[in-house]
């Protein structure tokens, strides 16, 4: 199978910031992303879990974005503008993708 070098960016961010994040990603030229639900976690701001929660305040989501390597920089810059004052983490991994024309 022919594969192509790409980056997998994973942004774990508060649910309330999801729409803002995906909007700046789209502006930064990201053509696709996938949002995974998150059920709990822990960090400097303590432990949390979605069990029984009604408010969107206490939850996070994981936004996964496969992207050509040369596009990572603008993506990170855009994401940083949103994430900066907020809790959450960003990681970038090397990966290979099929169907490179899609990224």
């Amino acid at each position, binding site marked *: 199978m022919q594969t192509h070098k790409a980056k997998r960016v994973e942004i774990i961010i508060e649910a309330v*910031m999801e729409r803002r994040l995906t909007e700046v990603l789209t502006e930064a030229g990201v053509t696709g992303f996938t949002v995974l639900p998150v059920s709990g976690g822990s960090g400097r*701001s303590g432990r949390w879990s979605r069990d*029984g929660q*009604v*408010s969107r*305040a206490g939850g996070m989501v994981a936004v996964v974005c496969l992207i050509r390597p040369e596009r990572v920089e603008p993506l990170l810059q855009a994401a940083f503008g949103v994430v900066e*004052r*907020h*809790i959450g983490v960003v990681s970038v991994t090397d990966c290979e993708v099929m169907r490179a024309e899609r990224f």
Partner: protein
Amino acid sequence: MENILSLAGQNLISPIILSFALGLGAALARSDLTIPEAAAKAMSIYLLFAIGFKGGVSVSEHGVDLGLVTTMIAGVILSAAIPFAAFALLRVMTRMSVVDAAAVSAHYGSISIVTFVAGNSVLTSQGIGFEGYMVAVAAAMEAPAILSALWLVSRQGGGGRMDAHLWREILLNASIVLLIGSFLIGWATGPRGMAEIQAFIVAPFKGVLCLFLLDMGLVAGRGLRGSRGVLSAGALGFGVLMPVIGAALGLIAGMILGLSPGGTVLLMTMAASASYIAVPAAMRVALPEANPAIYLTLALGVTFPFNLTLGIPLYLAAATYLIGG
């Protein structure tokens, strides 16, 4: 006095309050009992829809007068004013940062719809009537407090963020839309609409409320467990004092407006209650530096149980004493 105590006692052994206590106890004892997020959200949607619809039907039955408008305006003013009182009190009673104090203030200016619903229940079981449009007032009181709090922060040079997104999120948040929407539906369809769906929204209402309070107890208990040491004695005191101050402001407003005793109790209850759904979400966006553990624990772990158990009977007694019932 004896009456208050007996009412409070009676209130304390209602299934609703005991369900909250069960959840609280289970969470503190670290039981693995949890209610799925989707089920908790579904219950909250059910409760909002039912309470809004009932209010609308009641308005369609009893007609609407100027009271709706003046009370909504009074509610907006209360919601916008209370954060200033709360902020001042917090600065005196605690060492909270400006941002934390402002965030907490926003919660106390806004309202907790479940506390409102519990107030409804107590009135209904005591056979005390109230204005059907109070539920629209509830919706009106959700948002103004947030703006006051953000203004408080910006005045101190801190940067509360307010963008177009946030405006929409605050004004069109799920509970405002559901309350106002179902209120209008109830108003439009009236008793005929009520007849069609009352087996769903009236009869099982209290039972659903029990399970919802079980869930709130679980969430409050987990919150208390996770935030030991976050709240100073001063903050705890604030969590009990502030609702009483809020209720007093609500009482004055109710008397000025000439509301019925029941309506006054509901206005007091709302003024006394602290939001734990809409405002926390807005704070995460607008004041991310504020510590959620502080405002959630205060609103859900201290003030909510206080209102539920002692507050509401107290407000009822005060209103009955001053307005008659």
